[in-house]
């Protein structure tokens, strides 16, 4: 089903759960739904996989080299699904860290929990979780994931187009990255999109060279380049 070499055709989910059984279950559920899966047993391992190290300081982008944490990540992650109750870093903590990270905040996060605690659910949704699943998670629940992943996929593809464009225009400088979030950044983030996929570069470049830079991108609020 997946077109080999083209990571865009398959969604990749990062599953986080300290319970081995639940990890196995969610992995099976996701694979049955034709998603690629990486399963880890802790929030800190999840962050490591995502290329974000806990000591990253988001408030000081200048000290972070443009290609730094994002290089460690070989695969694009289209969704994070995490258990709430975990020793050490809870799912809520992980959610917060992801949403606080400029490079990761666009990744949709789903929380799972075996306990139906309304205040917990509210807290997670308020912090930016897309969905809250009660365990045990069923196949039918996973049908709710696709729209969230599609959103990011489309956004990433647009960003890639933009990247290609800018790459062809700018010679040696770092890639400036427009921020798609409505909440405007107080300072520009000069890092390239961490979700940019390496294998597709050449393919897309050939196709997209002729794109007009004036193409409207409402998501970026009219900002197309930043130097």
């Amino acid at each position: 089903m997946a077109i080999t070499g083209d990571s865009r055709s398959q969604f990749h989910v990062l599953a986080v759960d300290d319970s081995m059984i639940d990890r196995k279950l969610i992995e099976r559920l996701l694979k049955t739904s034709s998603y690629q899966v990486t399963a880890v047993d802790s929030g800190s391992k999840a962050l490591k996989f995502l290329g974000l190290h806990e000591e990253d300081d988001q408030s000081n982008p200048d000290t972070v080299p443009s290609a730094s944490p994002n290089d460690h990540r070989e695969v694009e992650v289209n969704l994070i699904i995490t258990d709430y109750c975990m020793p050490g870093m809870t799912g809520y903590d992980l959610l917060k860290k992801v949403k606080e990270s400029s490079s990761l905040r666009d990744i949709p996060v789903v929380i799972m929990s075996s306990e139906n605690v309304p205040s917990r659910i509210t807290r997670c949704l308020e912090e930016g979780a897309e969905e809250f699943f009660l365990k045990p998670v069923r196949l039918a629940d996973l049908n709710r994931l696709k729209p969230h992943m599609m959103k990011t996929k489309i956004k990433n593809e647009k960003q890639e187009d933009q990247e290609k464009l800018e790459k062809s225009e700018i010679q040696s400088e770092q890639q400036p990255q427009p921020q798609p979030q409505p909440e405007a950044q107080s300072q520009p983030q000069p890092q390239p999109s961490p979700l940019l996929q390496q294998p597709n570069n050449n393919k897309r470049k050939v196709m997209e060279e002729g794109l007009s830079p004036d193409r409207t991108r409402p998501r970026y609020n009219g900002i197309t380049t930043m130097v």
Partner: protein
Amino acid sequence: MLGWGVDRLRADMNRLLAMLFHQGVLDEQFLQLQQLEDESSPNFVSEVVNIYFHESEKLLRNLRGLLMDREFSDYKKMGTHLNQLMGSSSSIGAKRVRNVCVAFRASSEQNSRPGCLRALELLEHEYCYLKNKLHELFQVRPLLTFPNTFQNSDLFASRFGFSLVYIVTSDVKLRCADGSTESTGSWSDLRFVTMESV
């Protein structure tokens, strides 16, 4: 006769499953697990159940260890073990075990050591029952899932008095080594069967 044998096995398994559902030992989640099994993951349920056994026994040992200590007071730690056991029981559909965990947790929250001891006894009993029944279930099951493996072929063959068998599909079709005949149903239709390596 082949067809009859398989049907009988299937009936046995269904009867056992029905009983376990009726008793509330298993719930719908167990069925969900079965639905997740397919050719690409033919042993999924038994794999999950084995992990469950392994983890649960560790947790039960921990719980007993905690409670056996006369000076035990770490109800919080006990609660953590219980939550884990509750979660995994719920994930595989082990309803009765899970329910006992809930009651156990209530005693734990009341800091009642006698209550906890009683609950633990009940928990161990329920767990043993579940384990025995699931073992029974899995003895029957491998023959009826995707048995293109040596292990399943052996089991199947020995049960029906043949030394070697190659099973083609989950419907238990038998095929001769030279591929000349395929047969479902009557054993007498087969001239010979040989085992092919997977």
